[in-house]
């Protein structure tokens, strides 16, 4: 019976990665390796103002003083930064003024990924999604910018924001994640190439979902993107992020920064479906995903909500966090992290309660299969002044098979007596009883596992915008294909 279970497990967890293709596009690269020259090259390519170059160089000098952190429950092969290309951009013949001028190969790539860059198609639907498509180091197209600008909303690539809105960039860039924050944040600050910029002015409710789609295409290339979202007083925006990469034997580095600023009464919902190439079933290749995501609830009654579905990457190191500075501000973190084969994930959140009556909720669902390791790491800190604050944390782990690991590392620090912190944790397996019950109704093993896993993750999946939820459900089943037991 044990061997039967293992056999089924193997079948379900060995599905193939469906986004592993490479697009043949003409690409220009920065010289391989990292030095001050690389940074000057990137900044020069982007025709950046002096303040940006200065920021990058300061970050680089700081990074040189740091060493890679090893506190996470991850086994990381050494990264040789001199073997990585830090900038790769699809060559373009001239400035793009319409979709017709985007390289058809690129359009085909995004269509293949199920992302339409064609505004007309989206307009026909009930609700549109504005997309910023980033391939390797640059943004190739942002849709709906004009429609959004009528509401005063700025949604463009980070590079464009540097050119067109330097004051806003100067004001907010690094204000939530300073370049001194950590090793990978310093690296990103030095070499980041593109990403998205969103600015929602006072009182505006963004009329459509904003979305950035990241794709690594070129070999030996790292992707270092940076996203900045600012919601002014009373503003609302829902933002989604998706990502995939070709199947390659070597590991590729992805080190991103996301910063969110929410002013008084503002609300930002940030959803991620992370599906970077996870490596093959023997653990060869895959993306190293080191990401610093943090939001600050600056004004009172503001809210930041993170939802993530993490199924990809060989290594995930990521803790989307909230600084709850404004009184009555709210932070939320909903996460499903799936690891299979040799994948490793160390992910969670930090909720820093600084304002009075602040509230935070953490719902984390880990699913481990194969020989993978899945860790939740979270910090809840309630400062002395954050009186009457509340946190509720729930960390559940689901194990498929006997060779995987699930770990929970909660850190809780409460410095006043009027606050309440609750933490619940469970570990479970898909039981033989559940599988038998499903099979007795005619449901195959694979479907049964898909059903059970999606049911387990439901609390998180229901937080996702409609456009993402169906995709995420399918992805969960696919990620575990060949792994049930």
């Amino acid at each position, binding site marked *: 019976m044990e061997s039967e279970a293992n056999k089924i497990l193997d079948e379900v967890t060995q599905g193939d990665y469906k986004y592993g293709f490479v697009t043949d596009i003409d690409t220009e690269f920065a010289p391989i390796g990292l030095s001050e020259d690389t940074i000057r090259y990137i900044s020069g390519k982007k025709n950046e103002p002096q303040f940006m170059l200065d920021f990058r160089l300061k970050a680089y000098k700081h990074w040189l003083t740091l060493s890679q952190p090893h506190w996470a429950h991850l086994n990381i092969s050494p990264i040789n930064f001199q073997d990585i290309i830090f900038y790769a951009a699809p060559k373009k013949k001239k400035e793009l003024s319409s979709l017709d001028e985007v390289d058809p190969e690129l359009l085909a790539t995004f269509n293949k990924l199920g992302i339409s860059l064609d505004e007309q198609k989206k307009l026909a639907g009930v609700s549109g999604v504005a997309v910023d498509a980033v391939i390797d180091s640059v943004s190739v197209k942002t849709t709906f910018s004009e429609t959004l600008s009528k509401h005063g909303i700025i949604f463009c690539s980070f590079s464009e924001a540097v050119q067109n809105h330097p004051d806003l960039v100067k004001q907010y860039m690094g204000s939530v994640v300073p370049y001194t924050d950590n090793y990978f944040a310093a690296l990103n600050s030095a070499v980041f190439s593109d990403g998205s910029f969103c600015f929602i002015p006072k009182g505006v409710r963004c009329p459509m979902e904003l979305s950035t789609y990241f794709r690594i295409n070129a070999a030996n290339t790292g992707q270092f993107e940076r996203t900045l979202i600012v919601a002014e007083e009373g503003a609302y925006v829902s933002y989604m992020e998706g990502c995939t990469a070709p199947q390659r034997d070597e590991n590729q580095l992805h080190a991103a920064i996301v910063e969110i600023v929410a002013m008084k009464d503002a609300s930002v919902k940030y959803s991620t479906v992370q599906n970077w190439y996870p490596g093959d079933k023997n653990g060869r290749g895959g993306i190293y995903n080191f990401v610093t995501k943090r939001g600050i609830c600056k004004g009172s009654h503001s809210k930041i909500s993170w939802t993530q579905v993490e199924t990809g990457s060989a290594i995930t190191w990521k803790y989307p966090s909230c600084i709850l500075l404004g009184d009555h501000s709210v932070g939320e973190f909903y996460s499903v992290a799936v690891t299979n084969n040799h994948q490793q994930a160390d992910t969670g959140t930090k909720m820093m309660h600084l304002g009075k009556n602040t509230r935070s909720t953490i719902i984390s669902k880990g699913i481990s299969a194969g020989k993978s390791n899945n860790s939740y790491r979270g910090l809840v800190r309630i400062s002395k002044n954050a009186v009457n604050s509340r946190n509720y944390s729930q960390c559940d782990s689901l194990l498929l098979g006997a060779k995987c690991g699930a770990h929970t590392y909660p850190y809780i620090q409460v410095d006043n007596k009027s606050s309440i912190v609750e933490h619940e944790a469970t570990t479970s397996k898909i039981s033989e009883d559940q599988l038998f*019950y499903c*099979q*007795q*109704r*005619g*449901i195959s*093993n694979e479907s049964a596992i898909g*059903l059970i896993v999606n049911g387990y993750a439901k609390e998180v999946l229901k937080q996702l915008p409609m456009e993402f939820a169906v995709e995420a459900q399918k992805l969960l089943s696919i990620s575990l294909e060949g792994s049930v037991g």
Partner: protein
Amino acid sequence: MLLQIKNLHAGINGKEILRGVNLEVNQGEVHAIMGPNGTGKSTLASVIAGREVFDVTAGEILYQGKNLQKLSIEDRAREGIFLGFQYPVEIPGVSITNFMRTAVNEVRKYKGLDPLPGGDFLRLMEEKKKLVEITSNLTNRSVNEGFSGGEKKKNEIFQMAMLEPMLAILDETDSGLDIDALRIVANGVNKLRRPDNAFVVITHYQRLLDYIVPDFVHVLFEGKIVKSGGKELALELEEKGYDWIKKEQE
């Protein structure tokens, strides 16, 4: 003949539980299997359904002339075998609607049919819910999660109605039921009886058989069917208990 069990021996972890069971079930019949605790009633049901923890060591089970041991659990179900569980398991976060839709469509796929369109499926659910007298909100809840004993058993009968099996085995469906729930469960079974299907009702007490009238009653004792008769055998057992059967065996 729908089901033919010949000299079935089966057990778990090397321990023999069924020691030569013989049973024949024809279309249109209702059979009751009774007997004291621990004599193999639930094991027999599990073995017919194909549960892998049990090993069949001798004998055979023929279903519609096919050797069942060559079929997987899900294929047995798709061929029309339904097991009503004594202790239905909880599946958190999976609504009954979603669960049943998956089941119905996998059975259809096996039979070479297209999936049932959403509207048709919902209409089918409404019809079957009415048939087995269950309320709407039950099917919106997660499968068996937080259900009372009665709700779990009603859910089993509802699923049986949805899947329209040829052979339904109800494993102590009456255990833990109050009289109203018992009546609803029994009514459901009676409404689903057809000349072309059959029921095997496993029960401890004669009480259920007041509502589901069997054509045959069998007594399973120490892994064998030791006595068979008509519905009056159940009444005799109710009156005298199982001791006289034990004595007969000694």
